[in-house]
């Protein structure tokens, strides 16, 4: 899979909710979400977002990500293939997340959030008893 060429994908534009509205378009980041036995991990591509410009909130069972991007561009445009705007994404969480243990890191425009599962939601192997 690593050997194939990357295909061009246009950014997905979305409406932000009223309270977040800033000028300009908002985009939904491309994400990978996976889980293992202990954690659910969310990785989001948010190029242009530095670690000081990201706002991650967990409230009302929602995980909300807002990444601010500087829209400044040097000079005048000759060619514009992608547009620039903030990133906004919203996921519904459930009580199975241990919300106090959530960790986030940002590197080279990629956000990684680790959401630990609470103990009761970890999968348990169920032994089959024979009579």
């Amino acid at each position: 899979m690593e050997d194939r060429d990357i295909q061009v994908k246009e950014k997905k534009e979305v409406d932000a909710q009223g309270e977040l509205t800033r000028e300009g378009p908002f985009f939904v980041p491309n994400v990978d979400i996976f889980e293992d036995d202990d954690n659910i991990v969310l990785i989001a591509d948010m190029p242009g977002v530095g670690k000081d410009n990201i706002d991650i909130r967990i409230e009302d069972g929602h995980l909300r990500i807002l990444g601010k991007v500087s829209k400044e561009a040097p000079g005048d445009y000759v060619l514009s293939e992608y547009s620039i705007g903030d990133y906004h994404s919203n996921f519904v969480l459930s009580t199975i997340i241990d919300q106090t243990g959530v960790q986030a890191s940002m590197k080279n425009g990629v956000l990684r959030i680790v959401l630990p599962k609470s103990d009761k939601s970890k999968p348990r192997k169920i032994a089959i008893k024979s009579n």
Partner: protein
Amino acid sequence: MFPKRFIDFPDWNVGNPFLDFERMRREMNRLSEGFRSGLPSFSNAGVFPLTNVSEDINNYYVRAELPGMNTEDIEISATDSSLSISGQRIIPREGDNVRYHRREREAGKFSRMISLPGSVDTDKVEASFMDGILTIVLPKSEAMKPKQIEVK
């Protein structure tokens, strides 16, 4: 069940006709601007990475979004009138025991050639990479720069 909801709930804010209308208006503007200035600003070359090119009196600026890449995996070369960007985006495996709910981020190779609108001084091309955005500054060659002519 949690995983299902996690998958099915991106927050598309359905049903606000005014916002939809606003977006449509912006798209229309983008289209008509493209026609007027003769720039292909509403389409792209279909080659990864998409780039934005801008210029001022002294330089051309080429920018591309390459989130999660490392500088050593990006290769840039410039000739007098073109620029090539190639590389490979590697997304490391996350262990054998993981189960994916969504997988939208892409890995793979890329290679792109961009024709520049004018000639550049290849010795002085500089590239920087910050927060997943590659910025290449290409100084215009002396012959390309506008000369101010003084009236005596």
